[in-house]
């Protein structure tokens, strides 16, 4: 748990406080995202937690203890730290980089190497292949995986991350975000995360703290922030498509409905079945894998083939992704599959409409 009590930071050369009387709390196990325009003080706020920046006044508590009750170095070794440019030491191998904090803590070499291998596996890199590489031999995404592994090496309870995925290309960024979220849930660690990317914040955050000019403008769960913006600044920051963005906060797993299924072999000779209902019917083969759909409104009631991305929606995806697929094909429901691509249910447009109708401020 992290708690900020009346924390203010004034840099020597500036008159305006970079962080102005900040008060907030992040529960343990929570992923708390600090977000805001550049210069809003989010990075300074983060850096005050491991005393890379010293608060001018106020108190910061980590797990109930004042961070100033420890020596700086001792505090930092107990908190994971990940930055955008990773900062791997260029003259050390990957496993030596991961072992930096354990080494500072005086772990034996054997234990350090064991831990490094364990962590490489955890972040999805093959230890045999990667442990002896140098930073210049890694891609941006790989380097950041090593960066995360390094931060986790001494089993910290708190992780500070400053735009960790900002320098990774968008495709890999999303993969990294997903994998990191899984890792965070498995380890149950608290994370304080700085970003300026709202989509990233919505995807990851248990709680979003929106800052401007060193102050907190609003702090809430992402779906609440998007539904009830506190003022005009928040409205502008989250954008006019907030209803759509908000759908990104809801997992399909919570809105899965039973689907109507038809075996492929049951179709008539011309590929129709005379289906007159308004609901689409999913056509599956013997292994219960999707083949297509029958919709009385289109294609004269004959079966329509599914493009590949429509066969891969699973419970980990969000309602936003489900809605996008509905709009793409002009249908009022989309099928959901499990890991073996077998049909397990559907998501309906009517349920999505209900979510936004029930409680979103206009």
């Amino acid at each position: 748990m992290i708690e900020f009590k009346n924390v203010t930071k004034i840099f020597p050369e500036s008159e305006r406080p970079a962080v102005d009387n900040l008060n907030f709390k992040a529960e343990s196990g929570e992923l708390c995202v600090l977000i805001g325009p550049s210069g809003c003080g989010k990075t300074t706020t983060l850096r005050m937690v491991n005393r890379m920046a010293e608060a001018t006044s106020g108190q910061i508590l980590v797990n109930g203890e004042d961070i100033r009750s420890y020596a700086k170095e001792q505090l930092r070794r107990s908190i994971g730290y990940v930055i955008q440019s990773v900062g791997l030491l260029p003259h050390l191998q990957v496993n030596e980089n991961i072992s930096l904090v354990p080494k500072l803590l005086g772990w034996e070499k054997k234990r350090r190497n064991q831990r490094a291998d364990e962590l490489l596996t955890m972040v999805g890199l093959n230890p045999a292949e990667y442990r002896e590489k140098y930073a210049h031999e890694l891609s941006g995404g790989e380097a950041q995986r090593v960066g995360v592994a390094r931060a986790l090496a001494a089993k910290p309870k708190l992780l500070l991350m400053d735009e960790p995925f900002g320098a990774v290309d968008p495709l890999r960024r999303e993969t990294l975000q997903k994998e990191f979220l899984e890792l965070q849930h498995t380890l149950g660690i608290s994370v304080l995360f700085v970003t300026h990317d709202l989509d990233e914040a919505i995807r990851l955050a248990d709680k979003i703290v929106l800052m401007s000019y060193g102050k907190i403008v609003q702090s809430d769960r992402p779906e609440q922030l998007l539904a009830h913006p506190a003022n005009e600044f928040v409205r502008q920051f989250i954008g006019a498509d907030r209803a759509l963005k908000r759908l990104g906060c809801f997992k399909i797993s919570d809105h899965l409905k039973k689907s109507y299924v038809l075996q492929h072999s049951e179709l008539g000779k011309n590929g129709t079945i005379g289906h007159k209902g308004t609901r689409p019917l999913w056509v599956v083969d013997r292994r219960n894998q999707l083949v297509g759909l029958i919709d009385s409104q289109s294609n004269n009631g004959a079966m329509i083939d599914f493009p590949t991305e429509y066969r891969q929606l699973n419970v980990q995806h969000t309602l936003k992704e489900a809605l996008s697929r509905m709009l793409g094909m002009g249908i009022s429901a989309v099928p959901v599959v499990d890991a073996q691509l077998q049909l397990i249910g559907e998501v309906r447009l009517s349920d999505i409409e209900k979510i936004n109708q029930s409680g979103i401020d206009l």
Partner: protein
Amino acid sequence: MGKGRSILHRGLQYVVPLLALLFWVIIIYNPHFLEQLLKALFPNAVEHLYERRPLALLFVDHLLMVSISCLLATLIGVLLGIFLTRGAGKDFLPLFRNVTSLLQTFPPVAVLVLVAPFLGFGVEPTILALFLFSILPILNNTISGIRSVPPPIIDASLGMGMTPAQLLMRVELPVAARVISAGIRTAMVINIGTATIGAVVGAGGFGVIIIAGLVRNNSAFIFSGAIVTALMALIANWFFLQLEKSFYSPRERHEN
């Protein structure tokens, strides 16, 4: 094609210095080999080999002057460089840069003449002059080496809980090692050449042969003094380059 060239290139890298080393060892151990060579080159000279002091002993003089001055300059230059890149020392950086640059503008002979009355004739004033001339490259390279460590690396290292001393020993110096050692190499090579002027104040070394050649108008002496000095510089340079290769290089980052 490319590969063939790189093998040839790498081969030559070793062949030339090794031949130089071989030649060097032969003439130091058996100066009569050098004598034969000089006779062929300067048939009109009265004498060919300087025989008042054996070549091997002149080499020892030369080596001692150069290594003592370089060792001292490395010690002072690196420590000063570290101090000038710390929080407290940063303010002194422009001052020290100016002072060391100024030192570099003094002609070495002038330094010798100026300090000889205080330190006497012989090895000491020469070592002092060489020391003063070595500081600039070593100090400059230490400073730029340490400053070339990217800020995120320092941020990450401190953020992981390194003390300032650990940052210096485990991050800054290892990353800067190659640049610093290039500075020491430059100083060493320049010193080997400059050390010949020590002979003016009676310090010994290869300069003795050259001075004798100038006094007696003997080109064979001048030439032989110059060639052994140049060979020594070449070999020292090569030796230090091999040492540098074992350090981390910032350039490796761009190779892949």
